[in-house]
């Protein structure tokens, strides 16, 4: 891969190790970086030459050479990931290589006109390198100088894009493709996402929370945006009534794959033994036991569909390792309707209450799941004015170390709630 030097304006750093990442059938990011370096007359060419030089240096020494710092745009405190090179004397053109985190539309939809406009901004103000998308869900415009950071933001902002979160603040959210193309979708993910994030967008732009807080929206329990694992506040679509069964399609499927495969792969894979295959190849479903795991719907999407009484489950407290280890979200709201304007307002309001609770009660650098662990779920529920529900647990407590002198009062409240629920249902009918 030796480059023949025909008096090019920049002296290219040799990149023998990176060059090895250009072969093979998968698209190569190295080839992309080199294209930017080799774009004649491009303002970013010298920067990308030194970036490649530093990256090769990392490959040789097996070390990273970026330091953080403080860079922001006018009126905002977050959204920029500052990067200053620790080896700037060797690679001066890429000594400042900041990332602008920009919020994509929910579901990551684009059209070519908009994408070209994004590219044109970055052609003038950045490195020419953009990641679709980062793990939090941002479009990452990687590589702006401190001076150009404001220019790049101003232009991106003018064409309808805004910075995402970085630092101790509300973060950029993520949604699956959902209702725009998926029959499993149980709510309007795009609306929930936009309603919540845009209501509290100030919490993104001016970091003032103990640590980060993330929202993710998955249209069904397949959870394609990994909300339970990755979000402090996971909104997941589900349904309350019976799943829909098209028995003709069930029969057609059984005829295609055979009874043995149907039993081994669908019936016995049901986690709550809620399925039974009838002698005539129709399907019997015990909907009271079904936990909406999605397996049978995934295998037979033509035959089985979610029910009509759709809504969401909310789980709170998921996060990655720092500081106490990975945590998953815990069910806090087992079911909530999300159809009317009032439903969406209620969700947005609840999200606000959780953000406020987090801001008021979390210790520095503590995620809300860690706060809940520290104070106990009952204290969190009390703060949120949510009643305990057996859907929140795998099983009731096994430890006897608990003070229960108000058990009778708590039990009375439970029966009162149950009666009210039953009464409301009767009245509605």
């Amino acid at each position, binding site marked *: 891969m030796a480059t023949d030097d025909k008096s090019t304006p920049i002296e290219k750093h040799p990149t023998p190790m990176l060059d090895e990442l250009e072969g*093979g059938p*998968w*698209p190569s990011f190295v080839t992309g970086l080199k294209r930017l370096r080799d774009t004649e007359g491009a303002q970013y060419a010298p920067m990308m030459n030194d970036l490649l030089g530093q990256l090769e240096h990392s490959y040789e020494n097996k070390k*990273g050479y970026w330091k953080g710092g403080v860079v922001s745009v*006018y009126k905002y405190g977050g959204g920029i990931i500052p990067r200053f090179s620790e080896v700037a004397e060797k690679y001066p053109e890429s000594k400042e290589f900041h990332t602008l985190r920009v919020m994509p539309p929910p*579901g990551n939809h684009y059209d070519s006109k908009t994408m070209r406009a994004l590219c044109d901004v970055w052609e003038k103000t950045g490195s020419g390198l953009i990641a679709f998308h980062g793990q939090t869900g941002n479009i990452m415009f990687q590589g702006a100088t401190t001076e150009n950071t404001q220019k790049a933001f101003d232009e991106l*902002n003018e064409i309808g894009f805004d910075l995402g979160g970085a630092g101790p603040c509300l973060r950029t959210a993520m949604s699956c493709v959902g209702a725009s193309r998926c*029959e499993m979708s149980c709510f309007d993910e795009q609306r929930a996402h936009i309603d919540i994030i845009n209501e509290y967008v100030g919490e993104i732009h001016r970091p003032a929370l103990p640590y980060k807080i993330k929202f993710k929206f998955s249209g069904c329990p397949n959870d394609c*945006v990994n909300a339970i694992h990755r979000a402090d506040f996971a909104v997941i679509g589900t349904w309350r009534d019976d799943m829909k069964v098209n028995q003709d399609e069930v029969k057609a499927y059984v005829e295609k794959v055979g009874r043995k495969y149907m039993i081994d792969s669908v019936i016995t894979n049901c986690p709550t033994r809620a399925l039974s295959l009838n002698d005539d190849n129709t399907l019997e479903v015990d909907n009271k036991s079904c936990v909406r795991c999605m397996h049978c719907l995934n295998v037979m999407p033509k035959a089985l569909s979610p029910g009509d009484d759709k809504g969401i489950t909310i789980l709170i407290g998921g996060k990655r390792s720092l*500081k106490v280890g990975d945590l998953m979200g815990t069910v806090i709201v087992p079911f909530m309707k999300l159809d009317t304007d009032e439903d969406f307002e209620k969700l947005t309001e609840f999200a606000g209450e959780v953000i406020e609770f987090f801001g008021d009660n979390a210790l520095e650098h503590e995620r809300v799941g860690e706060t809940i662990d520290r104070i106990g779920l009952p204290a969190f529920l009390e703060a949120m004015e949510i009643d305990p529900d057996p859907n929140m647990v795998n099983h009731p407590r096994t430890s006897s170390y608990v003070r229960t002198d108000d058990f009778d009062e708590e039990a009375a409240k439970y029966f009162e709630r149950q009666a009210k629920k039953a009464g409301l249902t009767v009245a509605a009918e």
Partner: protein
Amino acid sequence: MSQATEMRKPIESGVPEPKQFMHPVMVKNFGAWDWHERPRPGVLHHRAKSGDDIWTVRAGTQRQMDLYTLRLLCDIADEFADGHFRFTTRSNIEYMVADEAKVQPLIDKLLKEGFPVGGTGNSISMISHTQGWLHCDIPGTDASGVVKSLMDRMHEEFIREEMPNRVRITTSCCQINCGGQGDIAINVQYTKPPKIDHNLVANQCERPSVVARCPVAAIRPAMVNGKPSLEVDEKKCICCGACYPPCPPMQINGEDSTKIAIWVGGKHSNARTKPTFHKLVIANLPNNPPRWPEVEEKVMMILKAYKENARDWERVGEWIERIGWPRFFEITGLAFTKHHLDTWTGARHQMNHSTHIRF
């Protein structure tokens, strides 16, 4: 001051409305889809309740894209896909077309331009990954390089749907695990406590927050050579690197200390079993750029064992649940050590409290 008044005020527009970018058939049938099928790997066919159809062609990208690549993807959208596209959670691009006749030319064009078509159904999709040496301030390795190397090797499984179930792989450049949970996770695991430059700590680090950051309370303030600094109880230290971002003089990565571990059995979906975390199977693999051959070899071996032994629809973790961990270590020929016994909070819940033993 005068300069500040001239600054442009931001428009706090927040999240953009996606419908302005979506394919008109998707806008029209929003929330009213009926079913889908996969006519071939890399292609989804969705039928709306209205009877409308849309075909999606999915292709792999390098995630970190240069302007040429992005504009090429736009050209492809304009010529073959009515100008619309989206990206999946795992950085695959998806083009949607309302006319089935456009599917094959679109596939041909993507393949011609070097974008593998696949990643649907029971395939190995693109690896979700972190920034690494290209941009992170605390990376032990270069996720982009690891991913490129592995996707080259796993390409045949990306373009087919021949695995028992979908395989979701992740990489992370340190134990913080920003890459997330995966059927297989390839993560940096530091093996040595931080090396402290005591001359720099007082000036660069806010010492109380560094002390507070440590998950095992192994860091305490100390005077070293007459200067305020920090010291680490190396017996307690778990080498996680959490102290390094707030205090760069506590150098965690280095040739002797940056190793790679492989974890298996993480799962996001609620399908069949509840979501699970991945579990450690191998540590201490060399961090060996530019192609990480030792890591590749182990990942390919685990994938082969899974493909040959798992039943249809079992994810990696579910397969191991059925056959048991002893059999997993036997089939893969990997070592089971004291390091596989968790010692963190709640670890006892992970032990076998029964006589359920497979012989």
